[in-house]
């Protein structure tokens, strides 16, 4: 091991910093005791994790039978979010106590935020499900103490960490032998796979049977978020991304294999395969939209129409009884035709929009989306089935073998739908490849140039018209491809899968994840299409929650979860993130003459 640890920012004991802002006085007062506060906060979080409230509603059964102090019976028996609280609390104590860890306060702050959010989610849940606000009062006994203790613990941790002064993110320049780095990457990717499976299945299937799905899922997400923030603060994530960048091809291959292994984890049931396939459809569509919006900067509010066109074309060409065309082509051909037809529509929509920019373009695309939905609703040309939809689209298959069958290899039994999952993983990978290749080419640069300054782009010899149409065309083709898959997978294509709301959700996925990046679009699509699945009981508030999440993201991370370009800068300048957090948008460095 040729490890050379050289954090650029050594762990100097932070001098009592002068704080500014709304909480300056509080932070200044807390500064001398920051370490103590962090440890106290960690202990409180631990206590919160061990108080029996935690058992009562979510994991063990209904209140009050199981709301016992089984802490004494089974001292280490913590599961679910109690486990998360215990881990976050312990980690906070350990990191706070070890003064030599660089960026100690920043790490602890991440842990504290995680604990706060976990406690908040569960506390809120108790007040909602466990008898309203009254549940927090003393008369209800010990039930809510845990959430209050953990919430307090989290807040105190954050206070202590912030008061101690946030350090710069350290930069690690370890270089291991290539085989060690390969092993490390494989291990990390497998861990990511297990985490993804855990997140996907956490809380089980939502719905009437299982009202806890949502909160267990959110709680796990919050805990992982806290851990992620802490790891990011320690600079280790940046280092890992540098390592994986060093072995780029290897990382991509391993990631693909790992994605194909998902059916072997706890998520390997038919239900989760369906959920994962649906996420894949939207991820592929979001990447296509990312070309139009993220790269070329053309705001498209009717994009889901192309997914719909692809789906309806596929439905009509695959021998469904309701289709009037009545031919049954092989699915590979169907996918290609769907993609091409959608692409043609993309170009058709693109052409008249060349003369409009910004808001006007958004309105034109919005109108196109509406035209599509209305036409489909009215069964235009008998092609869309109208309100009856096109049901019973045959599954993809080769000969007698259907993609919807389950597979048995020896003692290994893969759930049905697994082949669709494999197919969509490969499809998403192909779409990613298309996106990445285009982005780093003459065409991609032209798109970005148009996004940045259309007049300057045309002064550089870029024929903006055809290049913009090409963005619409390629984006629509990718959506059409995803649509064809969607038609086969769900077996029913109905107009109401392609409403304006879906367009907005796709757009939100792109913006939320980070415009112009692949991981951003995939992450955004996953979040926005898993959430409704998990939060069935909140389905009435779905839009409200979306709106809230978007507002929060735009306030605290205007460049999206996975920002474009900043990443490169981030690797060299650890403070770039803070600059971005200071306020929305870049600081103007340009001086107008």
């Amino acid at each position, binding site marked *: 091991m040729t490890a050379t640890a050289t954090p650029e920012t050594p762990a100097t004991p932070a001098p009592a910093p002068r704080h500014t802002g709304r909480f300056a006085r509080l932070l200044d007062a807390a500064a001398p005791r920051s370490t103590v506060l962090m440890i106290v906060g960690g202990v409180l979080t631990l206590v919160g994790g061990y108080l029996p409230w935690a058992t009562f509603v979510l994991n063990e059964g209904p209140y009050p039978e199981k709301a016992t102090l089984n802490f004494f019976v089974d001292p280490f028996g913590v599961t679910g979010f109690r486990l998360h609280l215990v881990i976050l609390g312990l980690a906070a104590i350990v990191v706070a106590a070890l003064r030599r860890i660089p960026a100690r306060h920043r790490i602890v702050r991440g842990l504290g935020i995680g604990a706060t959010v976990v406690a908040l989610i569960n506390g809120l849940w108790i007040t909602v499900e466990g008898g309203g606000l009254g549940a927090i009062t003393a008369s209800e006994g010990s039930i809510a103490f845990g959430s209050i203790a953990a919430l307090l613990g989290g807040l105190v941790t954050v206070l202590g960490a912030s008061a101690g002064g946030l350090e710069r993110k350290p930069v690690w320049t370890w270089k291991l032998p290539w085989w060690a780095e390969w092993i490390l990457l494989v291990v990390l990717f497998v861990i990511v796979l297990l985490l993804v499976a855990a997140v996907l299945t956490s809380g089980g299937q939502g719905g009437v049977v299982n009202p806890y799905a949502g909160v267990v899922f959110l709680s796990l997400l919050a805990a992982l978020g806290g851990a992620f923030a802490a790891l990011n603060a320690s600079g280790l994530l940046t280092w890992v991304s540098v390592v994986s960048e060093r072995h780029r091809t290897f990382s991509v291959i391993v990631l693909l294999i790992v994605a194909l292994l998902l059916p072997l984890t706890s998520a390997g049931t038919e239900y989760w395969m369906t959920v994962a396939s649906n996420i894949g459809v939207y991820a592929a569509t979001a990447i296509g939209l990312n070309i139009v919006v993220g790269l070329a900067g053309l705001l498209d509010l009717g994009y889901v129409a192309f997914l719909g066109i692809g789906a309806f074309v596929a439905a009509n060409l695959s021998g469904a009884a309701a289709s009037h065309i009545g031919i049954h082509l092989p699915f590979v051909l169907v996918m290609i035709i769907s993609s091409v037809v959608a692409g043609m529509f993309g170009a058709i929509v693109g052409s008249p929009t060349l003369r409009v920019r910004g808001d006007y373009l958004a309105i034109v695309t919005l109108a196109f989306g509406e035209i599509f939905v209305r036409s489909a609703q009215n069964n235009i040309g008998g092609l869309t089935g109208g309100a009856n939809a096109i049901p019973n689209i045959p599954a993809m298959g080769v000969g007698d073998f259907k993609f919807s069958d389950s597979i048995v290899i020896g003692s290994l039994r893969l759930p049905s739908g697994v082949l669709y999952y494999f197919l969509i993983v490969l499809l998403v990978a192909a779409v990613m490849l*298309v996106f990445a*290749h*285009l982005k780093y*080419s*003459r*065409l*991609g*640069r*032209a798109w*970005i*140039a148009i996004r*940045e*300054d259309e*007049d*300057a*782009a*045309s*002064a*550089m*010899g*870029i*024929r*903006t018209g055809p290049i913009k149409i*090409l963005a619409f065309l*390629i984006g629509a083709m990718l959506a059409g491809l995803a649509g064809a898959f969607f038609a086969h997978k769900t077996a029913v294509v109905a107009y109401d899968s392609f409403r304006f709301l879906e367009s907005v959700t796709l757009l939100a996925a792109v913006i939320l994840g980070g415009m112009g990046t692949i991981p951003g679009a995939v992450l955004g699509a996953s979040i926005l299409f898993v959430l409704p699945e998990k939060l069935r009981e909140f389905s009435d508030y779905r839009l409200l929650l979306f709106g809230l999440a978007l507002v929060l993201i735009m306030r605290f991370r205007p460049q999206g979860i996975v920002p*474009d*370009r900043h990443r*490169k*800068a981030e690797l060299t300048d650890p403070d770039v993130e803070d600059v971005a957090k200071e306020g929305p948008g*870049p600081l103007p*460095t*340009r*001086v*107008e*003459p």
Partner: protein
Amino acid sequence: MSENPETTDGATTTSAAEVVVEAEAPPEEVTAELAEDMHIATGTREPILVSSGVTMQFGGLRALNDVNLSLHEGEIIGLIGPNGAGKTTFFNCLTGLYTPTSGQVVLRGKPMPQDPARVTEAGVARTFQNIRLFPSMTATENVLVGRHVRMKQGPISSLLHGPRFRRSEAEAAERAEKLLAFVGLTRFSEELARNLPYGDQRRLEIARALATDPSVLLLDEPTAGMNAQETEATRQLIFAIRDLGVSVVVIEHDTKFIFTLCDRVLVLVQGELLVEGSPDEVRGDPRVVEAYLGAPPEEVSAQLQTGGAVDGAGTAEGKSE
């Protein structure tokens, strides 16, 4: 200042030499390599860019009236005039952003296309008065966008990233590297354009324009907001650009800069070409002084004679309009 042996007959007068400012010119070997790559000079004696009778009417406002200009290969022409004289409008007419109401622009014997992208393709590149880089792209990427028009990748080859694609990318990257070295921005090659210092943003804009292999480069106020040293560096840079075989038209308010840089100077006042001639002729012309300053008080006129900076905006109160 030795790089410009032909800087015209005595234009480099004593006043310019008095203020000696240290500034680095682009390294000669880079210039030589670039000149070979760009292959611009053809040795023709015919004017390569001719505008005849260009008139631009905006509603009731005549922004340009019968402007004639002929640019020869390897020439640097200065375009001066008070604010609002129509200098930038004239640039916009040359580059296809505006279609002149009457008159025509001819590039190498062919009428200039009326579309900015095609103009650039035909070999006329420009920079903007208020810098218009692509702020979220790196310096290298900005220059690569300039290569767009000379690269031959189609969508399919962009998709496949085959050997031909890689070759053309490598060539473009190499050219971008040379151009950044040429304007002295190698150290900023991976920096986002919006993070560059102001003066370097202007240089990057010039590099980006040069990436299109132009035979004519139009610079709109390339030294606005620069200090003496940066201005001198820009002057050296423009001489080096001329040495690449590129003909240059410069709009500037800094008359000292123009008189020591250009082979020929055109004075545009209220949309009309007032005077055209060598820097010495223009400098001595009483009409120019009057156009800038209204009634000519003796001392200011003398200052202008010796090549002091006269800014149209700065002397607004002296103007008659």
